[in-house]
């Protein structure tokens, strides 16, 4: 009978420890959302490399919230502690009892944090996003931008959405730092958005990261209607002149010069721009093949896993399911659309100034989201003229957009 009672007690104890008792409806809704995101990642292949770990992190934290718990200290009465242990290795705190007539000794027993709490430190301390930028730098060819530096104008124009959205978010009642973090979604650059948010408004990291990566995945759906609405058939059919070949020396000098200039003018953009350019220098110098391969493959993949899972794990039900999240997702979409529109409109200006030599569609690629946005520009161009290849021309504004959004991030970090 004692054995049966013991067994039942244990089962009841396990039941009370399980998620069935401790979880709220928020958590179950989040589990459902994470399953939808996993479906989108696996079946629809929307940015699966990031969406899948994010969705799984979301799932884990909502079933077992302690996986993100910070380390803490438990106060265990000394007598209870000594029943299980021979000696005390931790500091002891003395407190008066409720009546105030005797002193009770407590042992400060430290408890370790959850697994994802420790992995999350790389996000919290702003380590992962610059390392991701290092890998992106290794994979980026700045040749089209060097061949046509005017692309920088389009890369800059597409960042206006960030600052317009900042105003919108301020008007909606978000604080300045929160508004800055929401605006940066318009930069369509996941690592930049995460970097800025961890510095300015870490409490909004979950919704902002999910919004940023969702919109990046939805570039082929969001951008084309805007691009078509703002351009004429004639403008979309412009065939651009072949880009000049770029020498190796120019490609090697580019990352060094950009780093010096950006870091001098905007020191807060230095971690992002600096790592991006270091990666690119690895690639272009051609003398550090091993590091170059590691940075763009193994290192990038490892960081992507850590970043994805832990960012997903910030989206716990209580934090995520609020009206603020809906506001952030709506503002993020606005930022993204405004960025695309400004890019296309500046493309139109360039079309006018160059007397029809620039296809305005390439302006939409200024919102970073490399290389998806450039592919979309190419695809929309080919719908008008199937023999028109805009891809390399769109890559210029596209990579300029990465630098542009890092600069915009630097501006926000400096003034907010």
């Amino acid at each position: 009978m004692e054995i049966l009672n013991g067994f039942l007690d244990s089962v009841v104890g396990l039941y009370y420890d399980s998620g069935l008792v401790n979880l709220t409806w928020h958590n179950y809704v989040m589990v459902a959302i994470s399953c939808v995101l996993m479906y989108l990642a696996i079946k629809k292949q929307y940015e699966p490399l990031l969406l899948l770990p994010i969705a799984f992190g979301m799932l884990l934290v909502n079933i077992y919230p302690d996986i993100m718990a910070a380390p803490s200290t438990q106060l265990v009465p000394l007598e209870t502690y000594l029943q299980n242990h021979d000696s005390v290795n931790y500091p002891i705190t003395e407190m008066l009892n409720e009546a105030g007539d005797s002193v009770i000794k407590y042992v400060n027993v430290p408890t370790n944090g959850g697994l994802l709490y420790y992995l999350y430190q790389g996000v919290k301390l702003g380590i992962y996003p610059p390392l991701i930028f290092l890998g992106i730098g290794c994979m980026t060819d700045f040749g089209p931008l060097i061949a046509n530096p005017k692309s920088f104008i389009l890369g800059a124009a597409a960042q206006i959405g960030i600052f317009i959205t900042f105003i919108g978010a301020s008007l909606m009642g978000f604080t300045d730092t929160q508004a800055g973090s929401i605006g940066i979604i318009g930069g369509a650059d996941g690592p930049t958005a995460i970097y800025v948010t961890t510095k300015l408004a870490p409490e909004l990291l979950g919704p902002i990261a999910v919004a940023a990566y969702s919109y990046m995945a939805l570039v082929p759906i969001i951008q084309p209607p805007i691009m078509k609405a703002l351009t004429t058939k004639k403008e979309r059919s412009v065939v651009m002149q072949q880009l000049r070949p770029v020498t190796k020396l120019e490609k090697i000098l580019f990352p060094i010069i950009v780093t010096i200039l950006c870091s001098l003018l905007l020191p807060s953009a230095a971690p992002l721009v600096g790592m991006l350019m270091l990666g690119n220098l690895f690639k272009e110098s051609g003398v550090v093949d091993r590091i170059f391969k590691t940075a763009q493959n193994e290192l990038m993949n490892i960081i992507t896993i850590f970043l994805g899972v832990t960012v997903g794990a910030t989206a716990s039900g209580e934090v995520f399911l609020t009206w603020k999240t809906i506001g952030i997702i709506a503002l993020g979409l606005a930022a993204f659309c405004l960025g695309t529109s400004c890019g296309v409109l500046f493309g139109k200006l360039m079309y006018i100034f160059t007397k029809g030599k620039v296809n305005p569609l390439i302006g939409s690629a200024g919102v970073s989201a490399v290389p998806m946005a450039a592919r979309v520009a190419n695809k929309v161009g080919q719908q008008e003229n199937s023999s028109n290849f805009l891809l390399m021309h769109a890559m210029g504004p596209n990579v300029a957009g990465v630098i542009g959004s890092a600069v915009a991030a630097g501006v926000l970090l400096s003034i907010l």
Partner: protein
Amino acid sequence: MINFITASAEPVNPLAVLVTGFVIVFVVLLLLIGIIKLYSSIVSGVMANIEKKKALKVSASQAPTAEVSLESEIAVQPDNTDDMQIVAVISAAVAAYYGSDSNVRVHSIRRSKPSRSEWATAGINENIMSRRGF
């Protein structure tokens, strides 16, 4: 090191952020355009100079033997009208690639090493032709 913030954090004017952000992003990227254009022209100037010097050196060192080597080539390959046609075709293709307003000068044309042997190429060609029904 601990930095003490003495003044209370004042709310930022959103419009000021818009203007500042817009202006700084544009100024930085416009500066980059200027610098890239500048160093591109410097690099292309330097490269042109280096190539000129190389060409001069080559012509100076090979001048006396040039005729001999030309003769020997002609001896090996007597039918050079074909060669001239090939040079013209390649030059035209290169010129078309760079656009009509570019100033292209072809210095030398070298046969790249074939990826497979002549026999293998001939075999593949024969196979393709037979499948086409020729």
